[in-house]
């Protein structure tokens, strides 16, 4: 092991000879001086903190693609409608039962009349995104989703569609 680990000369048993006491004092002073050197060095190192809502250090931090942030429903721009076919796979797959889909229409025209996600209950596991057969649901790098009333954490189809307008495909790690 390294030298640092072997610096165990100051045993727990008390050794009362003058020499050992002097050695202990010297060792103590050296080790304490070293500690102070470390804090002094770090005093001059750049700070890691950011004044978060003030974006003065890193402007508009966005997590990388594939971040499990707030949800969005992707709109198929060619057809001009949501990709979601209201098959309710996500509802069944969700471990916390925080998704409720209300389907409407029949056969090929099935679409979600309502799509609720209780983000407060969600644990961001992304299983719903994975089970989606048509890649209609995605998690976005949106992380600033705090609200004042916990009821507002229940996302409805309007919010989800709106956020999904920025996305053409499911957000994945690159």
């Amino acid at each position, binding site marked *: 092991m390294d030298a640092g680990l072997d610096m165990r000369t100051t*045993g727990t048993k008390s050794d009362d000879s003058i020499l050992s006491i002097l050695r202990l004092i010297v060792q*103590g002073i050296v080790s304490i001086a070293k*500690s102070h050197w470390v804090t002094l060095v770090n005093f001059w190192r750049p700070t890691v903190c950011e004044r978060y809502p003030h974006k003065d250090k890193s402007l508009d931090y966005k997590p990388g693609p594939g*971040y499990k942030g707030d949800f969005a429903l992707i709109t198929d721009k060619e057809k001009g409608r949501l990709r979601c076919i209201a098959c309710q796979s996500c509802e069944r797959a969700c471990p916390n039962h925080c998704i409720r889909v209300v389907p409407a229409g029949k056969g090929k025209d099935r679409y979600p009349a309502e799509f609720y996600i209780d983000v407060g209950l969600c644990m961001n596991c992304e299983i719903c995104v994975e089970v989606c057969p048509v890649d209609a649901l995605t998690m976005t790098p949106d992380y600033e989703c705090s609200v004042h009333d916990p009821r507002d954490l229940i996302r409805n189809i309007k919010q989800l569609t709106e956020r999904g307008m920025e996305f053409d495909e499911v957000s994945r790690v690159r």
Partner: protein
Amino acid sequence: METRSDLRTEELLINMGPQHPSTHGVLRLVLTIDGERVVQAVPHIGYLHSSMEKIAEAKTYRQYMPFADRYDYLNAMGNELAYVRAVEKLCGIEVTPRCEYIRVIMAEMNRIASHLVYFGTLGLDTGSWSPFLYCFREREAIIQLFEDTSGQRLLYHYFRIGGLRNDLPSHFCDKLAEFLDYFPARINEYNDLLTNNIIFQRRMQGIGYLSPELCRRYSVTGPNIRGAGIPYDIRRVVGYSVYPELEFDIPTRPEGDAYARHLVRVEEMRQSVRILKQCLEKLPEGEINVKVPRRLKPVVGEVYERVESPRGELACYLISDGSEKPWRLHWRAPSFYNLQVLPELLKGAYVADTVAILGSIDIVLPDVDR
């Protein structure tokens, strides 16, 4: 002399926790103290009981995956590893070599992150504030890599049965290599700050003595047993995943006191760096996922899969009845068993040592209560 024995001073019964700054969560210790000495310590747990084992009975094997992260939040990747290995063993799934390597990379990174938290909080327990912030600064680099990879900072849900959520992001290897380059120097720095500091040494040496016999009686595992001189490490003993292909030492210390456990953990961080460097070198190309049926129905049977978590022997005991949901899932949580030995370690210690000893056995309360 007789009068001395007639003099009876009263012992003080004192409640440490569940709201106390340094019980690492919501542990409650009922201490009987005589002056500053602890006569008896009785831990009370259960404040964070989250019925992880009951939840498993109502979820499918895939749905339970994110819960595996959640009880030992400092070692989420390691927990996922234990669970995913148990399920794959039960289903007879072999994963690709690249996947195995990435899993080991994640587990080892998480080990470093966990030990950094340990290092920092032990500093807090002994009254030194700065190491905590420094350790979190270093941990941030790891957490950032996790975030880029799995999309989350603490509870990743990155492993999947039969593979992983996604491949590593393109910048991952470079960033990790960069971190591995500067990190060992930082460990030395923090050793200068805390480990080698004479006040810290004198406080940690000779307290919380854990003998090999005590370890056997209490099934203490992880860095705690290695601090007592026994090279018991599941990575070596079982040799799961790709660990047999990697070179690393099992650091042990013969003293068995709190300081020895501390040194073992510091050295383990270095060994993890070593493992990570080898993994980056050997990381094979290729697929990360194998084909797994959509409806996962393992055969009837049971597995007891052990992995080495930063806190010790973590095991997932999984019994399948052939349906989509586990019949019984039991976590052998290392903190649960490591915490049990605490009353033995506290006998005769000072009140100040209580927090230092508690810090040195490195428990995570959700891991204790599950």
